[in-house]
């Protein structure tokens, strides 16, 4: 099966008046179709920056990434057509209705009118938007808004879905809906990157994991591989160990956690 996302040695450095900040430091990963990859880490670990680089919203300082075979740096438009971005921080246009919003995004992605009408109908059913699809977004609840946001992002039916903290701010019912939906995406053969700092929920959902800390992927692989490497059962314990270990080391003596392509393959075959 093809790798829909390939990132190799991604670096992102922000220059600030007080010095350079390495937000992402030599990150490599691959995600194939029908796979959910959990990109896990605390706030500020570099997860969102990684997603933005993969999507081409942000230029990497160095490194390369391809999505669905398209190079992020040289074919950004084709990359964007292949990706759906679902972000908790994404808002909706308050004065448009969910239907108008979906049509607007269909337009941006060059979906034909007929296709768009059909797609709006399907997504409305899938996310149960029927009761408010023609009301202005301003009056919707957080859960409803998140559902509209999901529907909006899938209007162009892309092969790759990037989810940035999709359950943030949602209650149990809302979160469950997101999990069910992610499982459906997997069934449909999409390559999904699921970014979250809620480790337990990720553990249930994802096929493989990448634990990010201070801009680096410190551990990567399936749950079995991670358990073997860390000697811990739960991802939360692994993460706490990692933090403790890294905090005790000075920044200078930290070993670069290179995640080579081979280790990724290892992780996958297990």
């Amino acid at each position, binding site marked *: 099966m093809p790798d829909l996302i390939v990132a190799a040695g991604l670096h992102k450095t*922000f*220059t*600030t*008046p*007080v*010095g350079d900040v390495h937000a992402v430091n030599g990150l490599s990963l691959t995600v194939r179709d029908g796979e959910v990859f959990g990109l896990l880490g605390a706030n500020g670990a570099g997860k969102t*920056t990684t997603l*933005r680089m993969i*999507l081409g*919203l*942000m*230029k990497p300082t160095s490194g390369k990434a391809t999505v*669905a*075979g*398209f190079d992020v740096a040289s074919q*950004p*438009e*084709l990359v*964007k*057509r*292949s*990706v759906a*971005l679902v*972000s908790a*921080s*994404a*808002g*909706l*246009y*308050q*004065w*448009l209705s969910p239907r*108008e919003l979906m049509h*607007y*995004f269909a*337009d*941006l*992605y*060059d*979906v*034909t009118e007929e296709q768009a009408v*059909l*797609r709006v109908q*399907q*997504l409305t059913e*899938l996310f149960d938007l029927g009761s408010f699809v023609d009301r*202005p977004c301003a009056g919707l609840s957080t859960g409803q808004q998140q559902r509209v946001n999901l529907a*909006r*992002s*899938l209007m162009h*039916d*892309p*092969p790759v879905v990037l989810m940035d903290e999709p359950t943030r701010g949602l209650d149990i019912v809302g979160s469950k809906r997101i999990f069910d939906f992610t499982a*459906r995406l997997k*069934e*449909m*053969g*999409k390559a999904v990157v699921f970014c979250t700092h809620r480790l337990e929920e990720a553990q249930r959902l994802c096929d493989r994991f990448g634990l990010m800390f201070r801009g680096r992927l410190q551990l990567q692989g399936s749950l079995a591989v991670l358990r073997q490497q860390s000697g811990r059962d739960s991802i939360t314990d692994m993460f706490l160990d990692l933090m403790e270990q890294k905090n005790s080391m000075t920044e200078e003596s930290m070993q670069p956690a290179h995640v080579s392509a081979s280790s990724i393959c290892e992780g996958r075959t297990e």
Partner: protein
Amino acid sequence: MSLDNDPSGETESSDSPGARAAAHVRSPPRRIWRLARKELRESLRDRRTLATLIAMPLIVYPLLGSVIQRFAINRIDPNAPAAIVVFDGNIPDEIATAIEKGPERDVNPADDSGNDSKLSHDQTPSLQDVARTLAGPSTGTEIGTLARSEDADGPPVRLQRYGQPAKSEFIEEILQAKEADVAVRVKLAVRDAVTGGVTPGDFEVISLSGDAFSRRAAIVVEQRLQAFREREVRQLLDQTRFRSSIMPTISRHTVASRTPAPSPLGAFVPLMLVLMTMTGAVYPAIDLTAGERERGTLEMLMAAPVSRAQLLTGKFIAVVTVAVLTALINLIAMLLTLYATGFDRVLLADGASFRMFFSVLALLVVFASFFSAVLLSITSFARSFREAQAWLIPLMLVSLAPGILSLMPGVNLTAGLAILPLVNIVLLGRELFQGTAAIHLYVITLLSTLVYTILALRVAAGVFGHDTVLFGNSAGAALMLKRPQEKRIRVPVSVGIGWLVVLVPLFLVLSGLRSRIVAPENLTGQLILSGILTIVLFAALPVVITTWLRVSAVNAFALRRFHLTALIGAVLLGGTLWTIAYQVLVFSKGPLQWMELLNNTKLRELAERLTSETPFLIRIVTLALIPAVCEELFFRGFLINTLQKNSGMWLKPMLISTFVFAAFHVVVDQSLTLERFPATFLLGLVLCGIRLSSGSIFPGMTMHAISNGLLLSLKELDPVFQAIGLNLNVENESSLPAWFLVTSALISCFGAALVWLGRRK
């Protein structure tokens, strides 16, 4: 479709994404139209947009109209405070009444018994009367008993008698105590021995000096006295065989001038329209940029396969449309208000015509485009609604300044002012309303505004959706000034630009303060202070900044070794390039003269005084050496360092630094000498070139010092020039001889070649 409940939904997912991506791509104009349509739809549904678009003009103009009307009626209201006239006790009551009531009372003497201060109901001034009254001297009228003094500015004056006649010697005191505004004294009263009546002698009308109201009242009193005297004379003549018809009559008529004197209200109307158009554009501009970013919709938009330029164009069209709609509604509301109140006859030369309406509307469309582009370039910087608002407050204040300038009397649209943003629009608007706009000024205004629009859009396109704006956090000023741990190669661009922003007002204010410290007559003292100021602002403080930020002076100011060939080249350039710069200066004066922007008599005087009143050495040190060293350190050292992201980047830092360099040289002794800009820009470019090619500041410093020094010593060097058969005639600022220019240019080229040969490898 892959998302239906049928598990066979893989059919579409198995499509090649590339094939799907390539299919059915919309053409850019269609795409932009759809983007704009959505932005408009969203904006027009927003209550806040609707409020500025429709509610404001519908409320503001009628309100403003009624306020002006109220204010105007107050000024001619029969019940408004009257001017109190105190009469000399010797003045017969008949004369006092004639003065107080005015001529009409004689026509209808029955009124004398009534209350003097009340006009009958049908005498209440109409709005049209008010408008005519305010229109200015050319349409002066009288309303009821309100006398208009033709020789004085201002509304008509009503007179009222002081409680009781005063004794002649107390009249001044009453005026001084402000119990009355004007007094009438009779200087010589003669009692007729036969009839026993009093024949009045000479009258004296006394007013309070420096009190405009008193002066106007005095003029009215004087006119009525004269009218009374004339009537008396006519009556006397009628009793003789001559009859009053032998007396010539004088009548007074007015005719409106072909170019009416601009009334302050004339500029107020277009200014109001411009301000309302601005208000209309502000909200959508913030909402569609900073607002989108704050709500998190901008990232979704940027994640779509649409170029930033297309997104921005869509937003621009939406903002302009809302602004133009605002302008249109305002224009209609304003014209209706003017028509209803009768002010149209005052402010509009030929009344409201379709031609005037459309030319004003066209002007507002161009202005709306310009202002929308400026707004977008600023709001695209902002990360939140509040930040955008904070940025826009200074912009609005800055925009008010030219607007107020255009309200000043005597400021008329010239070719020079027609290129000044905002001023040109307000002044042209005024002329359009008055029907006096010249077609070439209309064209210059539209074209220059169009150019500014394009420039502002370019800035906006560079900023909108840029990485650092989209995802960056605003680094506070405190962070900017925090001392870093490690050494650095460059001063961060935010600090460099920040210092520049501080430097400009500091330079202007401190230059102005010079004359407070040393008397302006003491030119030597002024020069020394100016030298110290240059050292502090352009060298000492930048050195403090770079030291604090741990940037080595070698890097920050390019204090590096250089090739001797480059130095020789720079010396040759310094010795000859000034001639070309001088010629450029002479040429630059022509177009500026045409634009009426040249006003250098004061500066020429200053230059002459400098030559005659200050020692040569002081002039050379303060005007040639110090500027050469400090300006090179700042413009070619500090600024280039901060503007370069890497050593390979040169064009942008060079252009920006040179532009700032030239702009600083335009301000001389608090006057703008625009003619200096092209010449200084040329010199700045060459100096930048030397700095970038040699890698060092020193050759440029040498050239700068020689060039400045030669320009300053032209008078002293005159014998030398005469000896080689050259009459420069510098005092008249005439062109240099062609052979001299060509020789200089050749030597300059040779110098430039040497600089190139001595470049840093």
